[in-house]
């Protein structure tokens, strides 16, 4: 031991009277925390609402759903209504135009310099027209088309969840519950399917089936469920040796009853979270396909096809690409936030696969 340490040990301290004070014991001895009996759902609600991210996500999803349902009817433009002469008009919104923002003016850039124009003023038919998000190169209202496209993205989201639940969940549950040879074979099949890059298959499939809503649905159904089946299998492996399963089996319950009536309710929360995580993925797949020219056919709109169309005139009219990009990103962001929040509230140990 060094001298300094010895010194420190042998040092003498004098305490002043006010160095310590007596703890107020009366408070914590008698205090009893009273827990009100809460239902699981209430507990879930409290936990969920504490997570700001997930609440924001949920609110955004609701807003997006609202606009997808009613947005296309909010003004008088049809989704495929071309007005000749009203091409490429910048956004113009009532009231806001008085403040100099969204007043329909746009900047044209060329190599010689830039110039600000307002197509609403130069066009005698358009003085009373308001394109909230602007109009595209064919004179169609971007506001209407954006929300039309959102409908498709939400439909894709729905498909992704249904596929996850019906194919992925069932596959995983069966594979995990029976184990042994069944599990072996099913897992090898899964490994092979997983080895196929879904991008390549989906792309070719769409080419073969001709682009359209149905072929996009099939493409997502074919590849979207693998992650889910893994989680379902892992979850059922945890539970299948528990007493309540044994009890059901001794009472003579069929495997299907045990899987779907006994075990499934216990792991349903985890599976729902997983399906939420696959939503952004599916939406992305659709927009990706649209971007490389394999989206829904021409007059119909999807967020991806809107982005890909307005990309062509992106440098001259950037306002066209902003609404679909924003809505797409917000949708994916909201679903991610919601899934994160749900996971934290229901099962923090669950990991993404």
């Amino acid at each position, binding site marked *: 031991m060094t001298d300094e340490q010895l010194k420190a040990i042998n040092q003498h301290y004098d305490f002043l009277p006010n160095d310590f004070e007596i703890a107020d014991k009366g408070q914590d001895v008698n205090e009893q925390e009273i827990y009100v009996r809460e239902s699981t759902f209430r507990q879930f609600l409290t936990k969920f609402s504490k997570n700001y991210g997930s609440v924001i996500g949920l609110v955004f999803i609701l807003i997006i759903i609202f606009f997808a349902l009613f947005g296309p009817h909010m003004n008088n433009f049809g989704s495929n209504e071309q007005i000749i002469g009203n091409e490429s008009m910048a956004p113009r919104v009532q009231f806001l135009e008085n403040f100099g923002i969204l007043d329909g003016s746009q900047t044209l850039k060329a190599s010689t310099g830039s110039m600000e124009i307002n197509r609403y003023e130069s066009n005698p038919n358009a003085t009373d027209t308001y394109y909230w998000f602007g109009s595209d190169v064919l004179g169609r209202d971007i506001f209407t088309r954006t929300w039309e496209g959102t409908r498709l993205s939400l439909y894709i989201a729905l498909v992704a969840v249904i596929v996850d639940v019906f194919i992925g969940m069932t596959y995983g549950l069966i594979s995990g519950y029976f184990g042994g040879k069944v599990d072996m074979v099913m897992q090898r099949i899964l490994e092979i399917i997983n*080895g*196929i*890059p879904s*991008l390549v298959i989906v792309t*070719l499939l769409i*080419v073969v089936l001709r682009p359209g809503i149905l072929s996009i649905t099939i493409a997502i159904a074919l590849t979207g469920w693998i992650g889910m089946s893994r989680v379902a299998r892992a979850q059922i492996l945890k539970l299948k040796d528990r007493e309540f399963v044994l009890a059901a089996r001794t009472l003579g319950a069929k495997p299907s009853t045990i899987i779907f009536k006994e075990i499934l309710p216990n792991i349903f929360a985890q599976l729902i979270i997983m399906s939420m995580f696959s939503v952004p993925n599916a939406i992305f797949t659709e927009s*990706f396909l649209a971007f490389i020219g394999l989206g829904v056919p021409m007059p119909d709109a999807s967020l991806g096809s809107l982005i890909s169309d307005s990309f062509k005139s992106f440098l001259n009219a950037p306002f066209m690409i902003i609404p679909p990009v924003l809505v797409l990103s917000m949708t994916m962001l909201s679903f991610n936030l919601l899934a994160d929040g749900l996971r934290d509230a229901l099962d923090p140990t669950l*990991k993404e696969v």
Partner: protein
Amino acid sequence: MSKYLFKRILISLATLLLIVFILFILLQFMPGSPFNDERITPEQRELMNIRYGLDKPVLVQFVNYVKNMLTGDLGVSYSISRDVPVTTLLQSRLPISFELGFWAVIVGTFSGLTFGTIAAFNQNSIWDTISTLLSVIGVSVPSYVFALGLSYYFGFQWRIFPILFNLNDKAMSMVLPVISLSLFTMASIARFTRTEMIEVLQSEYIQLAESKGVTGSRLLFKHVLRNASIPILTVLAPLIVGLMTGSMVVEQIFSIPGLGQLLVQAIQSNDFNIVMGISFIYSALFIFVMLVVDILYGILDPRIRVTGGE
């Protein structure tokens, strides 16, 4: 370990063969034919089909294709650049795509690890919030949206980087595509690193190491990062695959003469052999990455090595 390795390689090869077969079947159903020129008469088209062996039964074509493939022959292009061997086309395209993907993985992984580590060590601080926010945005916003934004501001408005890919100025042209591609990888790795690290930091062996006086970079690299890296590795494989998807669009946006761009062209002009060749390369790469990750997993985690991956 060697038995496990052998099994894994066997499964990989089987998968690859199956993929080639599935691709082949799918291509047979492709609408239209590679010879879409209006001036070609039906008789001429017939002759073309015979010349390229497209008149034979599917199974014969498949066996022929696999036979040629084993000798390194992927057939010739039908319509994009007629009679040029696909391998030659691939050779000129592959390096650029590969370089792009390589840098995206490197940039994404290291920046992701850094962000995740900062967030985990300063839990619930402002850094944590910023990094979490960035990673949620990075995961949610598709890479082509970043690509569009970057090319608009950095390429068009401020003219810092070239807006379109330029072979003479490769280094500068690569910057924007690499950034836009790597953001998704970065965000996912950051998210994952954070959760894994927080778990590791709370574990008993870290407390032991800390109480023994291990601090700073030694603690981080030797104890925390090594244990957190195993699960991180598992997400890296799907991420690399995601990069392939992303690269197809990003190559389109910056008009990079890479594989993705060629694939899109080939699909649009029914050039079967090119579609087949590129899909094969993608699949092989994908399977290879999965295999490497599996092996690395065994090296990093002794428990897997001992039990042979069961």
